[in-house]
Structure formats: C-alpha cells, structure tokens
C-alpha cells in the first residue's frame, strides 16, 4: 500500500516534470511562433496597456489570416502569451523572467511605458532574447548599449523639438522665449532635454523651467508666471494629467501665449474632454491616421483606423498603431532570418529597413527607430466648438492643414 503510494507520487512527479518541460521549449510549437509580453492590464497604465494589447492582437490576427510567417519554406502563425504586470516595474521584470525561463519564450514584445520597458530590458538582454517594443520612448533606453532591444517609435527627445523650430520659423527666424513645465519622470524629462537642445541650436532662451510633481493637479503658479513674463512658446509635458490640467487652467486663467505645445493630447482625449478650450493646442504624436505610409497588411493609416474601429469600437490612438507595427517588424525579421535562432533573428531585426502603415522603420545602433519623424497636430474646432479635430500641421510633407499662429487671445475667442 505504502509502496504503491510512493510509486504513484513518483510517476506523477515525473509526469508533471515532463509536461512542464514540454512547455518550456515553447518558442515554436507546431506551426506557432510564440511571443511573450508583460502588459499593463490593471493599474495606472491600464488604458494604454489595453491599447497596446489591442494593437498587438489586431496585427497577429491580420498577419495570421493573410498567410502567416514563412520561415524555411514552412508557414507559421503568431501567438502571444500575455501576463498582466499591474503597471508595476518590479512585477514586469519578474514576468519577463518567467516568460523566458519558465514558458520558454524566445521573442518578446514590449510592455507599455518607458518605465516598464526599462525594467524588462535588462532581463531580455541577459537571456539574449530579442524584444521589439512600441511604447518605451525614453532616450535612456537607447544609450545603454542594449543589443536585443528594438523600438519602432521615435525617442522622447524628438517629441517637441520640432515645435521650437516651428516657433522660430514663425518668428521670422529669430530666437524665441520659451516657458516650459515638465513632469519629473523619465519620459517627460527626456522631452525636456530635446527642448534644451533645440533652444541651444536656435539660440532661444528658456525663461521658465518648471518641474511638475508626479501628483500634479495644479499648475496655477506656473501659469501665473507665464502670464507675467509672456513667452513665445509654452511647452507642457506631464502625461494625460499634465495635458488636461494645463488646458483647463490656461482657459480658466485666460493665459495668452502665441504657441502651446504638449504631449499626450490624444491619450487624454483632450478635444473631447475640453472642447473648444483645447483649440489651437499643438500636440506631438508618433502617428496620425492621415499620414500616407503604406504596407501590404493594413493598407494605410485610414484603413487601419477604420478596421481598428470596427474591431474594438474606438479610433486607434498612436499607442495601438505602433504596437501593431511591432508585429510587422517581427514578421519581416523572421522571414529575412529564415531561422528561429535568437541571434539570427536579432541580426535580421538590426538590419530592418521597411515601410509600414505606421511609418518607415530602420533601427540605429542603440535600437531606436531613426527613420520616422514625429508629427505635430493642432486641435481645430468648428465655430460652436461642438466638433474638434486633430489636424497634422508639421512636418510640411504630411500637413493636412495650415498652422494657426499666433493663438488668438482669449478676449477675442
């Protein structure tokens, strides 16, 4: 009796071991290429986390239904293992570890946000697992010498420097006075660095340089200073909270400034939440549906937006579009590598040079995409403010509307 029990438990232990070891070689199972991703489905990044996941899923379905990935004469389909990282960097790093060492994933997709990507990158690097990420723009990701990290998006320091060039151009080529307020987090501070560089390049002067706290909900002091010193450009970056707070208080305090440049306008649903008060705000965006890039899978931006809307019921923010693009990059790299060897896939990724509906993709040494400029759109409303639209105004090549400059004063609005 006792012996049978021991034998039974031994057999079951072996069975469990065997079954788990079968999973742990899961990089390619049958005709499936398994990708892994830790993503914020709960916690403070959950809305953008869901956008990211929707973008990934949309691309997986599209690629699979259009013939899949052809490697070595055989066709494979993508599948993604997701774990919820709860918007927590420590948890994200643990999950990356688990995806790689327990689930045997050998190709990773990035999480949402710079902070979480920073937490995961050392893990993927340690195991030599190629990661294509679409939502970590902080410049520090690309200066650490990571070999297995590839980002389809432009780095954070390029978000708003275009706005300074634009302001200088509108000022007749003369330097401008800049007021800026940035949240104290990795991303916003990188945006700030970009502005500092642009200011130096154009000889412009920074007259207000405020750092906003993370628990920011009041910018009245900064804006009162702006009113007193009258800069030519006001630059604000503090995620969705920063964008919403700035627009609300600028309208309430009647702050007149010729140009207002921000980040995260579309994530904040700025024009929906603030209506006409958000008009004329200039916003940095990685992507806009009216851009005319093309690919074979999604057609162009307009088609992507329509398909996305049909599938998920809302207009895709750029976070979703760039996430979809990450899958296109992986597919292209697998096919060019003609192998599932991590090293070969990594080398193929490094040699990527393609166009997607999201933009051109070509990676620099550090892994950032250097072939896709940022676009700036301006919020433009009809007369009664019932309908506001984001129109691309820069760079000129993609512009669908003329920049309105300077912003009309509040007394005339």
């Amino acid at each position: 009796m006792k012996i049978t029990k021991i034998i039974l438990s031994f057999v079951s232990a072996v069975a469990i071991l065997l079954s788990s070891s079968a999973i742990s070689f899961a990089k390619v199972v049958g005709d499936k290429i398994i990708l892994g991703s830790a993503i914020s489905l709960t916690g403070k990044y959950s809305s953008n986390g869901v956008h990211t996941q929707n973008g990934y899923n949309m691309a997986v379905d599209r690629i699979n239904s259009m013939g899949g990935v052809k490697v070595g004469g055989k066709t494979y389909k993508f599948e993604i293992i997701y774990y919820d990282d709860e918007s927590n960097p420590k948890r994200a790093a643990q999950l990356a570890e688990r995806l790689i060492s327990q689930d045997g994933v050998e190709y990773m997709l990035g999480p949402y946000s710079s902070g979480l990507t920073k937490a995961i990158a050392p893990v993927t690097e340690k195991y030599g697992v190629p990661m294509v990420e679409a939502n970590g723009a902080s410049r520090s990701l690309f200066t650490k010498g990571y070999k297995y990290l590839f980002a389809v998006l432009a780095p954070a320091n390029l978000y708003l420097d275009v706005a300074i060039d634009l302001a200088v151009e509108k000022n007749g080529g003369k330097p401008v006075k800049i007021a800026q307020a940035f949240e104290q987090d990795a991303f916003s501070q990188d945006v700030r660095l970009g502005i500092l560089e642009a200011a130096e390049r154009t000889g412009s002067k920074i007259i207000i340089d405020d750092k906003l706290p993370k628990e920011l909900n009041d910018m009245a002091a900064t804006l009162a200073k702006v009113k007193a010193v009258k800069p030519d450009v006001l630059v604000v970056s503090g995620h969705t909270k920063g964008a919403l707070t700035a627009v609300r208080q600028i309208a309430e305090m009647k702050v007149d400034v010729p140009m207002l440049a921000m980040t995260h306008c579309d994530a904040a649903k700025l024009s929906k939440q603030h209506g006409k008060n958000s008009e004329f705000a200039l916003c940095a965006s990685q992507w806009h549906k009216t851009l005319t890039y093309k690919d074979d899978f999604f057609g162009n931006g307009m088609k992507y937006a329509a398909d996305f809307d049909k599938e998920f019921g809302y207009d895709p923010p750029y976070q979703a579009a760039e996430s979809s693009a990450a899958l296109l990059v992986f597919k292209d790299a697998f096919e060019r590598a003609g192998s599932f060897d991590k090293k070969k896939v990594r080398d193929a990724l490094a040699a990527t040079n393609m166009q997607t509906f999201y933009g051109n993709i070509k990676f620099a040494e550090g892994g950032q995409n250097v072939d896709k400029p940022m676009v700036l759109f301006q919020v433009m409303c009809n007369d009664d403010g019932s309908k506001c639209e984001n129109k691309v105004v820069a760079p000129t090549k993609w512009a669908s509307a003329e920049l309105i400059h300077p912003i009309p004063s509040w007394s005339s609005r």
Partner: protein
Amino acid sequence: MDFLIFQVPMLTLQATLDGLLLGILFALIAYGMALQWGVMNIINIAQGDLVILGGYIAYFMYLSGIHPAWGIIVCPIVMYFVGVGIYKTVINKVVDRDLFISILATFGISILMMQLMNFAFGADVVLANSEFGTTMLFNNSVTLPNSKIFSAVVSIVFAICLVLYMKKSKLGRAIRATAQNARAAKILGVDTEKVYAATFGINAALCGVAGALIAITFTIHPYMGLPYTIRSFMIVIVAGLGNLPGVAMSGMGLGVFEEFADYILGTEFRIGSVFLLLVLILVYRRFKLSRKREYLK
C-alpha cells in the same frame, strides 16, 4: 531661487488668493479627518480615496448631463452610506484597537478602493467641466477661476454647518461626548456604536463634497487619493486634534505657503517644502513639550 513674485505685486496677490482658495478646500477634507481621528482615534489612510470616489460620482453626473455642481448635494448623501458601510464591515472591528491596527486596516481599504475604482471606472484621468467662467481683477492681471471660488464658498458653508450641527444637535452632542470619554458616554446611555458609524459617515460625506469640488476644479484619477490623505494629515497635525478653527487656519496657511514655495523655490520643491515645514513644526512642538515636562517634574 526666483524672486519674480515679489517684483510683480499682482503675482503676490495671485499666489495669496490661489493659496487661500486651495487651502480652504483642503481644510474641508482635513476637517473630516480631524473629526474621526478625535472621536474614534483612527487615522484614515483611505481619506483621499473617499475624496476621489466622491469625485467620480460628480463626474458620472456630469457625463449623464447633470451639472456637476449638484454633486455637492448628491455626493455627500451617497458617500455617507458608503462611509457607514465601510464602518460596519471593517472599521468597527478595529476601532478599539491600537492606532497601528487601524492604520493597517484603512491602508488596506485604500488599496482596495483604488483597485476597484480603477477596475470600474478605468485608469483615464477625467474631469467635470463646470463652465463657471473666470473672475478677472485689476484689468485681467489677477484671475480667479469661478470654480475655485465656488469650491471655497461651498467648503466654508459645509464647515459652518458641521460646527453648528456638532454644537446644537443631539447626535452632535453625543459625538462630542464620545470623543471626550467613550466609556463615560456609554454609561450615560450614548449608543457609541451608532455614534462611531455616524462619525465615519459624516467624514465620508465631507470627502464626497470635496471630491465633487475637486472634479470641478482639478482632475480625478483612481490613484490620486494619497496626496489628499497626506495633505489633510498634515493640516490636522499642524492644527492639533479637536481644534476645528485651527484646521481651517492651518489649511489656508499651508495653501498659501505652498503657493509661495512654488514661486520662490520652484514647482519641484512645492510638496517637499510642505514636508519640511511639517518636520519643523513637529520639532518645535516637541521642544515646547519637553520644556513643559521639565517644568512639571
């Protein structure tokens, strides 16, 4: 260091007014905290989360087409029952225990509320537009958003009502009696259990009002509760327990101090300077206390 604020007199005025209006709103939240701290000896970490929940109620009224300012009527009513509910399920089990247990319990409630709100309402930053407009003084050089003035006025009205209620009503007297000596009150026939539930409910109701006002003046997000807890904690510490006029004064004082620190030291030192002030006040208090004790010896 930037002394622009003293070079432009209008900025000084603007900062002072902004600080006062902000301080009054914070004082309202601190009021609730002081009340239940005094009565039940509980430091409620979930204070800020109750505020945010109140804000969401106002936000959903706004979404369904009702003016969010009506939130100041609806939110306290709803939040009162939420407060009583929380008391009946959790707080009544920790109310006689030591402070540490109650901090742990309310910390747990805080995390739970954050996650539930995030789950139910999503992680987007939202706000309710009141369309109240702006009051401009001195030829548009000092601007006061009417929403902030509205908040301050409503806060003052609620605070006065609360003080009157505490003084005049039967329940108010029972609450004060329980705060002074719970056992004696019980012996004299006060149903302390009921008093505790009502106190927690009133605190939650005040948080609800403040939440509605914050949805109108600032922004709402499931994880933004903690700064409100910390601010009200500080206001109460500075004022001292059971000192309701003191709460109002220290609220406004801290508001103005914060604004000036923002202008002079920079926005990044705003919260830090408030903490520094708190430490200084505590050290000063301790210093004074130790002298007193020596005297008593």
